[in-house]
């Protein structure tokens, strides 16, 4: 087995939830395994740190070129294995991704295409009928989150200060928007989509569940049962839903504009012919 000197939240939760199931690939930074969910075999996937990564900008759990394409391959294999199966196995993305890899090598070799491979594969799995669940246990940042988890039918997050969702790290976001980090933080208090914390993110209506654990650093039996229960609820919810798209995310109080635009488009679509 791979001996990672780093322990990440993603690695810890994958191990706890799958009972340390053996990896299906000898990939150091993308862990893939099969383990039960609600009595059914599910495929579990996490991105974990690899301090020896050939790509120096992808050593801390970032989603880089290789990680993006390996995620794509892992999900494509799952789709292929169940192509003729009447019941498609669930896929659980355990999400703890600090960012995409920021580097010259990455841009030169087209990291955008690698991440498209991953995002596209997850979307195809969902459209093919695989219930896809994203479990956010740590950071869910930007392009890394788009590649690993954001295409899920349902998203669940742990309620914890260490759990964050955002489009860009604070220093870079400040530079691009010509603000100071302090000004950015002040604005984030008033503008929900700009906030980094999970409670503000939950107010956008994109998450299906937010879980309160008792011991985040070292989850106990009760915490584990809670997370397993939430995954089972999400699975049941997906199976009862006829939709395979992401429309379930549009009902939040802060998404009125998203709904209005879609209504206008639908009304005007036919009239335009």
């Amino acid at each position, binding site marked *: 087995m791979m001996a990672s000197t780093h322990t990440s939240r993603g690695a810890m939760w994958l191990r706890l939830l799958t009972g340390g199931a053996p990896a299906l690939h000898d990939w150091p930074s993308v862990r893939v395994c099969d383990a039960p969910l609600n009595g059914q075999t599910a495929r579990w996937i996490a991105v974990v740190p690899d301090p020896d990564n050939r790509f120096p900008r992808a050593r801390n759990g970032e989603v880089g070129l290789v990680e993006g394409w390996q995620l794509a391959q892992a999900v494509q294999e799952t789709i292929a294995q169940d192509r003729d199966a009447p019941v498609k196995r669930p896929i659980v993305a355990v999400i703890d991704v600090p960012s995409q890899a920021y580097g010259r090598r990455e841009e030169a070799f*087209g990291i*955008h295409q690698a991440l498209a491979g991953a995002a596209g*594969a997850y*979307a195809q799995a969902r459209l093919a009928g695989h219930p896809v669940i994203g479990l956010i246990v740590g950071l869910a940042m930007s392009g890394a989150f788009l590649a690993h988890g954001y295409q899920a039918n349902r998203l669940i997050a742990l309620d914890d200060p260490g759990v964050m969702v955002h*489009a860009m790290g604070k220093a870079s976001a400040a530079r691009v928007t010509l603000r100071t980090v302090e000004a950015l933080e002040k604005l984030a208090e008033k503008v929900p989509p700009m906030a980094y914390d999970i409670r503000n993110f939950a107010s956008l209506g994109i998450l299906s569940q937010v879980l309160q654990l008792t011991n985040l650093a070292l989850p106990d039996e009760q915490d584990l049962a809670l997370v397993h229960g939430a995954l089972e609820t999400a699975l049941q919810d997906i199976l009862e839903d006829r939709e395979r798209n992401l429309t379930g995310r549009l009902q939040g109080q802060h998404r009125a504009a998203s709904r209005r635009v879609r209504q206008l488009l639908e009304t005007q679509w036919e009239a335009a012919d």
Partner: protein
Amino acid sequence: MTDIDKLLQRDSFIERNARSRAQALLDPGTFRELAGPFERLYSPWLAMQQLVTQADDGVVVAKGLLEGAPTVVLAIEGGFQGGSMGEIGTAKIAGALELAARDNRRGIPTQAVILFETGGVRLQEANLGLAGIAEIQSAIVDLRRYRPVIGVSAGTVGCYGGMSIAAGLCSWLVLTREARLGLNGPQVIEQEAGVAEFDARNRALIWGLTGGAQRAASGLADACVDDDSAAIRATVAGLFARGVPAQHRSERAADYLAALAQADTAVQPAAADVRTVYMKGEA
């Protein structure tokens, strides 16, 4: 005609704004804008921050015909907030793609062109922009099962951030020499990794590695065309005629992993190294 005459008569696509670009692609007289500026779709989030808003939020949804085929063009206005994608702009693109996919399920073969001119997520609407981009990506993957989704980035903004991932999901991708395509903008890499990793002021480096000519030469785009509206239109029409590719570029994980295994990661690659690695086995 001399070269200079040709140049003077060329109808630049880059110089057109988003609405005019959509008009240039669609058959004359068929352009109809949906959810247009008279619907006053101002970004509520920019207004809350006392920033400039625009009645179309910088995205034009145009329905019409392209060589007689039902087509929706989604054009991003690079001149408004750097083409950044907020809640309304992403909802326009995702919503239109969703309706195009629904058309196909009802027997109408609607196809789509996305004109990428964007720095990615609008950071003033951060998480709603990111969520909207995930919805665009989902809709591209749905629609491309039936009819091609063609991406075009002409410049000068280029295509960055989450929208570069959306471009990577397109069936076919068309760039000009002036366009750039990449995930992380040079400024952000410099901020995150330092100037030694990427000098954001080095324009030759940026275009050399991520410009349209390099992307087409290394197989990460399907065509690099002149900044000429007629040429871009003809290229797009030709790609629609080829139909849905047997395998989308985003589905070629095995090829790309094999190619990347050959790359020397001890040094920073030059543009030629990337072309060699990717074009050897037709990665």
